[in-house]
């Protein structure tokens, strides 16, 4: 149609920088700060410490860290401060605090983020029977869920790739608790238990969502298999015996291998690193026990639920802090080259490194997003249309499958954004149709990649400038 009136609005978009990476992040439990580490450099380059004084006070204990799937945020638990912090790591050399949640008397310990990035589950280290569910789209509120099984509690949590199955470690009862998360991500709709080897303190689920490894403090890894949403059975490999007590376990990105950080041969001895071959769902064999000797040393106590071992997204490196709390201050973080199991000391200069995680550069939102107002002339009346256009962001590592469009009234709060549509990756335009002449909206456009991970939004809004045209 030749005759329509165009109303144009200005453009806004989000962008970011690319870094070398892969990146590691380490939480320093006693120094109460974080550091980022460029694992791709030799030696690994440490940035920070960051946010000292903003993440609680010494003695409270920063414990775990987990990264959102879009790599934009890190969540950090403060056990004694009863808080979970959200830290913007989109610029890894300059992380900024992006909010915190006070969980009351809850003692945040392990953090598990759902693969779709929509929610996080926090275990309670105080011995209460509670889990905290945090909605990550707003990071403004949380729900507490009390385990229904009496005298059961959880130190560690992992969420399956279906975003529904949850597995918890109950070290006091030598079992795992598993079930299905409800649709509102606020609790469980089913809850069952299975015995484990003694002292289960950590858990990881393979990238294909089928194999579960549970770290048991008495030199065992218990193996399970996820058989359906919320359903878990013992694996064909029941358990694996190690030389040293394991504390953390992590899978390679392709799920073919797994790795364990172990305490070492008694207090004061170096921590060790072992690897496993994943042969199939629930079928795991020991590949190399004590494959690497690390720079950190063993203490009598293990971290409960804290992930002190992480594998880089590329699968090239692992980063390990240590197996339990202590006041060591230097050379206590290791980078392990996973092609030859060579460990490199990383001098962080901070006290009591605890949780670690890895991430690549952020997942990027659509680029150069813009909004224009069109008028569709139906002769007897006019239809007003907001046309959103954008460009694919070439910085994204994974192919984009979908763009999602959210909308809110221009003057409303950001919490009122609601999804109005989505288009496939080949479509870089969306028309919000059927609007009134006076409607003014703000929009967010996000990318969802082939993993189902959603990016941060590109935001588009503005003041309408009327321009008549044909």
């Amino acid at each position: 149609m030749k005759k329509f009136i165009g109303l144009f609005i200005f453009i806004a978009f989000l962008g970011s920088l690319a870094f070398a990476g892969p990146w590691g992040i380490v939480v320093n439990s006693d120094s109460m700060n974080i550091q980022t580490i460029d694992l791709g450099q030799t030696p690994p380059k440490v940035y920070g410490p960051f946010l000292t004084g903003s993440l609680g006070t010494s003695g409270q204990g920063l414990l775990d860290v987990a990264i959102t799937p879009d790599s934009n945020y890190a969540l950090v638990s403060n056990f004694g401060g009863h808080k979970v912090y959200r830290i913007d790591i989109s610029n890894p050399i300059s992380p900024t605090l992006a909010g915190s949640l006070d969980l009351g008397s809850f003692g945040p310990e392990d953090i598990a983020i759902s693969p779709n990035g929509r929610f996080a589950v926090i275990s309670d280290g105080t011995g209460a029977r509670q889990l905290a569910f945090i909605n990550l789209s707003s990071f403004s509120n949380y729900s507490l869920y009390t385990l229904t099984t009496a005298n059961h509690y959880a130190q560690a949590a992992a969420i399956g790739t279906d975003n529904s199955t949850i597995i918890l470690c109950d070290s006091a009862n030598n079992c795992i608790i598993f079930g299905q998360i409800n649709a509102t991500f606020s609790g469980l709709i089913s809850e069952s238990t299975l015995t484990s080897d003694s002292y289960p303190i950590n858990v990881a689920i393979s990238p294909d969502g089928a194999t579960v490894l549970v770290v048991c403090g008495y030199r065992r890894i218990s193996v399970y298999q996820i058989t359906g949403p919320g359903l878990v059975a013992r694996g064909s490999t029941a358990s694996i015996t190690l030389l040293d007590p394991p504390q953390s376990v992590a899978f390679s990105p392709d799920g073919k291998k797994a790795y364990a950080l172990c305490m070492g041969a008694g207090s004061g001895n170096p921590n060790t690193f072992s690897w496993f071959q994943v042969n199939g769902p629930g079928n795991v064999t020991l590949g190399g026990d004590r494959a690497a000797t690390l720079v950190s040393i063993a203490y009598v106590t293990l971290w409960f639920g804290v992930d002190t071992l992480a594998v880089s997204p590329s699968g090239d490196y692992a980063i390990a802090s240590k197996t339990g709390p202590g006041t060591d201050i230097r050379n206590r973080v290791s980078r392990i080259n996973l092609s030859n199991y060579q460990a490199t000391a990383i001098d962080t200069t901070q006290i009591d490194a605890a949780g670690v995680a890895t991430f690549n550069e952020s997942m990027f939102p659509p680029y150069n997003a813009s909004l224009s107002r069109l008028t569709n002339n139906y002769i007897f009346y006019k239809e007003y249309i907001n046309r959103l256009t954008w460009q694919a962001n070439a910085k994204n590592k994974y192919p984009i499958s979908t763009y999602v469009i959210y909308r809110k009234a221009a003057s409303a709060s950001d919490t009122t954004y609601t999804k109005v549509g989505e288009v496939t990756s080949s479509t870089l335009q969306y028309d919000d149709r059927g609007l009134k002449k006076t409607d003014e909206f703000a929009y967010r456009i996000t990318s969802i990649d082939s993993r189902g991970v959603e990016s941060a939004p590109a935001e588009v809004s503005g003041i309408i400038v009327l321009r008549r045209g044909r």
Partner: protein
Amino acid sequence: MKKSYLVIVVLLILPVAVYAVDFSFGFQAGLRTVNDPNIKDVYKNGLCYFPYAAVNLFKGFTIGAGYEFGYSRDGKIGIYKEATTLKVTGIEAFVGYQYSLPMVTPYVFVGFGSFSYTQTVDSPAAQNVDKTQSTFFVAGGIKVYPMKNLYISAEVKYVPLKVTPYEEEVDLGGLRFMGGLGFTFGY
């Protein structure tokens, strides 16, 4: 709505029929133009048909009524080129004067019509238009009698029909160039 207009017209005609000199029944068909450039762009001009009945009262004064239909046009509309249909029909009553000459009768009319117009667009964002608008119109033409009671007519009619169903005024008016056949039955 259409039925009620028809009843009114019939009731108006019947009392005066007793004074009638003759009755005429006819059917015309022809081209209907549209004034509005947007309507013309999307729907174009079209055909229309007009069956009617008239009563010649005395000294050439005539009263009659008819029904215009047939203008139903499809097109593609708007930015998305969505399928659309516009349909216009009208119930008309008219009074006029005709001057009888041997074999030829020129005439002029003025009338009043109630026109219904509907627009449908195959789009989830569109709203269907189904409205009615009344207006006066004028017409002029000629009847040629090749036989005693049979005549051939040619007529030009102009209907100004500006409508505003929503916020936009649209001129649905236009000319009709009609031709047809009719019969006259005298007392």
